[in-house]
């Protein structure tokens, strides 16, 4: 049984006087324990809404409807009551957000923002909590942690802020970590470091990671499985290697073709200009795509 099994997730926003927005429209994917799963897609395709729905953090107001199911062990994250969700959040499922500066409370010291999770879920307080927080900062690569604990977010660099947020997210060794574009707001040189940190953390702790990104370079570097989202749907779902070698859906092909040339190692396939035009012809095989239509059966190989 997978760690997280999302079936037919849909989210709609209805506003009076406005057209109803189907931000997420029947998304299904699953995450095995310890696996790194990518959710890829362009801006506005529903990646953030998907992750917020899983965390139960969508605005609780009229007009916001969530459908489908997301089984996490025995609990359906979409239907559990708020009290149980509060216990799950931060302890079993944690999240890292895009903009580290705005995601940290500006008027509360970093230390308090780390220890509050420890107090809430692990019952650690006082000196014990502080020691554990310093250890966490150390693990995410923040030098001089005892001093940093007393500082405020504006006193940290962008990379350090994201590291601090990661420290808070992994504080209770969650089974699942959702990272919503954790590097988009960062400087390019720091992006690689943060990704490496995330990869090492989840590998060492066996935490499963849902990596939300629009950057295929990121996917190529760390994901085991990739789900390509387009307009609120999963248009393609594949293991990393076949996806890059042999994208089935034209949107994926386009996405691969749009990867800028300057990226690292494993993205090499993505850089290949041939993907823009089509799959390379391999001897003994025929093109698959024409056989697919219509109707298009492009989901899940």
């Amino acid at each position, binding site marked *: 049984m997978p760690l997280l099994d999302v079936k037919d997730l849909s989210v709609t926003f209805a506003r009076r006087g406005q057209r109803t927005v189907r931000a997420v429209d029947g998304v299904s994917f699953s995450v095995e324990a310890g696996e790194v799963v990518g959710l890829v897609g362009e801006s506005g395709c529903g990646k953030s809404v998907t992750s917020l729905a899983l965390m139960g953090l969508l605005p609780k107001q009229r007009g916001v409807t969530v459908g489908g199911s997301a089984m996490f062990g025995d609990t359906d994250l979409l239907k559990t009551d708020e009290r149980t969700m509060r216990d799950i*959040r931060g*302890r079993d499922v944690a999240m890292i957000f895009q903009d580290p500066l705005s995601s940290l409370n500006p008027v509360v010291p970093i230390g308090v923002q780390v220890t*509050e999770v420890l107090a809430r879920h692990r019952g650690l307080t006082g000196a014990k909590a502080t020691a554990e927080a310093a250890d966490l900062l150390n693990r995410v690569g923040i030098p001089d942690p005892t001093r940093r604990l007393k500082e405020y977010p504006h006193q940290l660099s962008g990379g350090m802020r994201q590291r601090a947020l990661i420290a808070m997210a992994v504080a209770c060794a969650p089974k699942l970590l959702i990272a919503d574009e954790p590097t988009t707001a960062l400087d390019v040189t720091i992006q690689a470091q943060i990704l490496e940190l995330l990869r090492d953390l989840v590998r060492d702790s066996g935490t499963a990671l849902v990596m939300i990104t629009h950057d295929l370079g990121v996917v190529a570097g760390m994901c085991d499985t990739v789900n390509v989202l387009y307009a609120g749907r999963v248009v393609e779902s594949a293991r990393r290697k076949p996806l890059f070698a042999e994208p089935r859906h034209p949107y994926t092909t386009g996405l691969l073709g749009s990867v800028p040339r300057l990226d690292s190692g494993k993205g090499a396939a993505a850089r290949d200009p041939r993907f823009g035009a089509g799959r390379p012809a391999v001897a003994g095989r025929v093109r698959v795509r024409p056989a697919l239509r219509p109707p298009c059966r492009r989901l899940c190989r």
Partner: protein
Amino acid sequence: MIRFIVRRLLQLIPTLFGLSILLFIWLRRLPGGPETAILGERGTPELRAQIRKNLGLDEPLLIQYGRFMKRMLQLDLGTSISTKREVMTEFLERFPGTVELTITAMIIAIGVGIPLGYLAARRRGSFLDSASVGGSLIGICVPVFFLAYVLKAIFSENLHLFPSSGRQDPTLGATRITNFFVLDGLMTREWDAALDALWHLVLPGIALASIPLAIIVRITRASVLEVLSEDYVRTAQSKGLTERTIRGRHILRNAMLPIVTVIGLLTGGLLSGAVLTETVFAFSGIGAFLYEAIANRDYPVLMGFIMIIAVFYVLVNLLVDVSYSLIDPRVRVR
């Protein structure tokens, strides 16, 4: 921080100096003078001149101002023209009542306003939200003295729940130390006196609180709404924190900044605005005395009052700035 406070207090000196010059000139140029108040319309020109001479008002403005300044430096506010008593003595007797009333009103406004504004923001669009937004509009529009009359008519004259006038029941024969009646009662352990003084504060306090309450509800609601859409609130929620931690540490702490500023401004305004409420409840604060002082052109009283209000304003603002930098580490005071 200490340096900041000291510097702000030093800045008070030129401020007061400038203010005193402006006031001095302005007061002297008002039509009429103490002599009219004393003699009425009947006084002969000779009598008027005589009185002005006795009061030293015939001398050049500069010399009058010099005398005033010299006294000020010795913290002497002079003698009231109409009561012939030391202005300082008059103030020490009457100011505490007004300050007590102001503090009561502020406690009511803050204690009700912040929770109400917070709830309205959290339940945006609910009945509570519309009611508090609408209610605060009414609170701002209804004149304070009108509200004071209504409160008095209902709660003291009809229901007899609260006393209708005064600061304390004189038959209690309470001991006076500071002239802050509640404080005196606590200091002398005359609990009944303290309670009675508190009881007398309720209705005028509510009346005076109406406008600041309305403003605090609105500013709190707006401020909380803004903070609610901040990413760090979502982060706090994603950590599974309890509602209490999220409310106090993550929402209110950030939302407090504009609220504190407004509270500072309101408090200064209340002190000088308590006059009408005091009149309705025959509350012997500074109000009635000040009113007479204006009618009588009692220059020393008016000067002294405004100078004290100015000092008070500066102190309240200092308090606001200090709490600002305590709340927000990014606002550093040097």
